[in-house]
């Protein structure tokens, strides 16, 4: 296992990039701690696969260095980096049995046959394919093949890191649960350094110790799931994480008071006088409706999502979402919107403004 360091790393797919805009991956410095599970989260085109490909050595960065345990591997080919990778679509040898597919990375490195046997059995149990070990991979369903890819990615214990690029895209929801839990227990057990690329927030949040959120070629926040939920550093993080995402409303802030659509709301904490485009962000989980207090609004519709409900509320022409519990119902006189002060974040030009006195 290894610590992975990104040193002044940046990448452009153009030969002579001049502007920052021309970089698919903007300058980045980061240490991936040894043995941690990370998720790289962002929408398509945000640079997350570019970054993963640089770490794996499939792509040479236009600038900066990459180090494994402080050793410079920037120019080392993928094979020398000693990493395991699992891609979005299954990569299996169709003519080989499931067993031989799983054994391949070990045999390839001349592992002891008894060890290979024991390890293949262990992995097969993990991915639930003990019964199909002697079948040829050809003719198996896409998700069975992807399970083989996952298994093969995890079969070697001596890799520097495990890299996953959207590995569960082709897997059914129920199986996703099982495989994700397996990955998680595997990490718990062996402590591999893992980097998991996904656009799916649930996968990212539930898998990782730390989530790296990328937006437009830039890392906008690295944090635990709780930090990303409670204190999104950028409005994009607020929007991207959470279903529905954070409500963002234009506002003006002075000290501990915010004015939204001409009406005052108490913030509970003082923010000085932020400048630029000032907005407040409040997650649907911290927003509720009341008959007696708050800002006038109109409920447009309520969607029943099973375990909770989502109310879509019109507030001065803008849609504000809020979450109601499964057994909560709305009375027609609940036409006021209340924001829980503890759940309000203040933003200036899309970046979070810390309240006075918050440790940086």
């Amino acid at each position, binding site marked *: 296992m290894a610590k992975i360091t990104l040193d002044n790393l940046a990448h452009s797919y153009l030969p002579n990039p001049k502007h920052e805009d021309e970089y698919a991956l903007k300058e980045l410095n980061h240490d991936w701690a040894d043995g941690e599970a990370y998720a790289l989260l962002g*929408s*398509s*085109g945000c640079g997350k696969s570019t970054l993963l490909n640089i770490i794996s050595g499939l792509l040479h960065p236009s600038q900066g260095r990459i180090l494994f345990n402080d050793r410079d591997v920037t120019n080392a080919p993928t094979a020398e980096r000693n990493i395991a990778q699992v891609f979005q679509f299954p990569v299996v040898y169709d003519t080989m049995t499931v067993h031989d597919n799983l054994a391949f990375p070990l045999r390839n490195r001349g592992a002891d046959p008894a060890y290979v046997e024991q390890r293949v059995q262990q992995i097969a149990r993990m991915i639930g394919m003990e019964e199909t070990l002697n079948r040829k991979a050809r003719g198996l*369903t*896409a*998700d069975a093949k992807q399970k083989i890819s996952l298994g093969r990615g995890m079969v070697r214990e001596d890799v520097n890191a495990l890299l996953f690029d959207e590995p569960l895209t082709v897997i*059914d*929801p*129920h199986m996703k*649960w099982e495989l*994700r*839990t397996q990955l*998680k*227990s595997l990490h*718990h057990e062996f402590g591999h350094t893992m980097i998991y690329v996904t*656009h*799916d*927030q*649930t996968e990212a*949040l*539930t*898998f990782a110790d730390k989530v790296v959120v990328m937006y437009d070629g830039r890392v906008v926040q690295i944090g*635990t*799931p*709780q930090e*990303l*939920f*409670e204190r999104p550093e950028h409005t994009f993080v607020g*929007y*991207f*994480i*959470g*279903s*529905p*995402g954070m409500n963002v409303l234009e506002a003006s802030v002075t000290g501990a008071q915010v004015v939204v659509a001409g009406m005052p709301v108490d913030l509970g904490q003082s923010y000085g006088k932020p400048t630029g485009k000032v907005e407040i962000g409040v*997650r649907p*989980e911290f927003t509720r409706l009341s008959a007696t207090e708050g800002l006038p609004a109109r409920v447009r519709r309520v*969607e*029943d*999502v*099973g*375990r909770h409900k989502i109310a879509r509320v019109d507030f001065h022409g803008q849609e504000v979402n809020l979450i109601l519990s*499964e*057994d909560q119902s709305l009375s027609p006189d609940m036409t006021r919107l209340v924001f829980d002060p503890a759940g309000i974040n203040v933003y200036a030009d899309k970046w979070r403004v810390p309240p006075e006195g918050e440790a940086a």
Partner: protein
Amino acid sequence: MSLVLEGVSKVMNGQTHIYTTDLTLESGTMNVLLGPTSSGKTSLMRLMAGLDVPQTGKVIWRGKDVTGMRVQDRGVAMVYQQFINYPSMSVYDNIASPMRILGKTKTEVDVAVKKAADLMQLTPFLARKPLELSGGQQQRCALARALVKDAGLVLLDEPLANLDYKLREELRAEIPKIFEEAGSIFVYATTEPEEALLLGGNTAALWEGRVTQFGPTPLVYRQPVNATTARVFSDPPMNFLNVRKSGDRLFFGDGQGVTATGALAELANGNYQAGFRPNHLELARHTQDAMEFTARLQVTEITGSETFVHLDHHGAKWVGLVHGVRDLPLGVLIEVYLDPRHVYIFAEDGALVAPAAYAMAA
């Protein structure tokens, strides 16, 4: 105006893809086909479209038997998981193509294309080629083409599966709005329970080639008629516990038991499967008659505002979804609680014996 499947079935190469199925879909409704991969969603859609002819049974469209009629003659629009557009044509021409084939006038085509493009937020991109668009825009182009066709039957086969999560969330909210104006029959296949709930309308739960239940979406979710539907319509999966009711006790495992409370106290003696959804498992006792279980905590997953707890209860895997961020030690036994109002009772063969009390109140 409706589409009726009357005893249709489909066997291919000796394998049954669809067992004898009866289904009636009404105009102006959204109908979700919910089930895992290979449960028969696409097979059923192909029968509805006329791409396949059923072995048995009839397809009745607007009162007329269309069972062998070619798909071209039926007025059907389909959107697939893969974004299918004509790569050499502009977005405008892509959207216009079905209407041109129908021989509409230039003005009619123009009006319809612009309206659809506007709805799908494609107006700025009409002159571009599909490959110059993002994935979401490409799929919106395919959806716009299905829309202008003004087909009586629109089949959407996992149309958002290849899109980014957030984009999916946004399009999912748009699709019912867009199509509800059109008055057609919509059929939407998905593997995701949450997607079915967000789309609303009716849901047909599918399992291994059988429609296990069909009805209004929230009703199918809250009042599944069997354990299979409950399992299909629950993500994370529904938790199950084999129990034996005897006197006032529910026994499970190696002779462990809890006092049967609430409606469970009324149950006749015998063997059952008790089912409950992850969000109803609790880490603290909230009601007096909550049942207490001891299970081993294997993994926790934190979503930011909630925590998934993965438990081993006498060899059965349970998942709980609890509010807040819980930092719990792994590998230890913990107590979990279940309000009897949240428990579904199924017979050993899976048929519903008693619905969860909360679901009847909702």
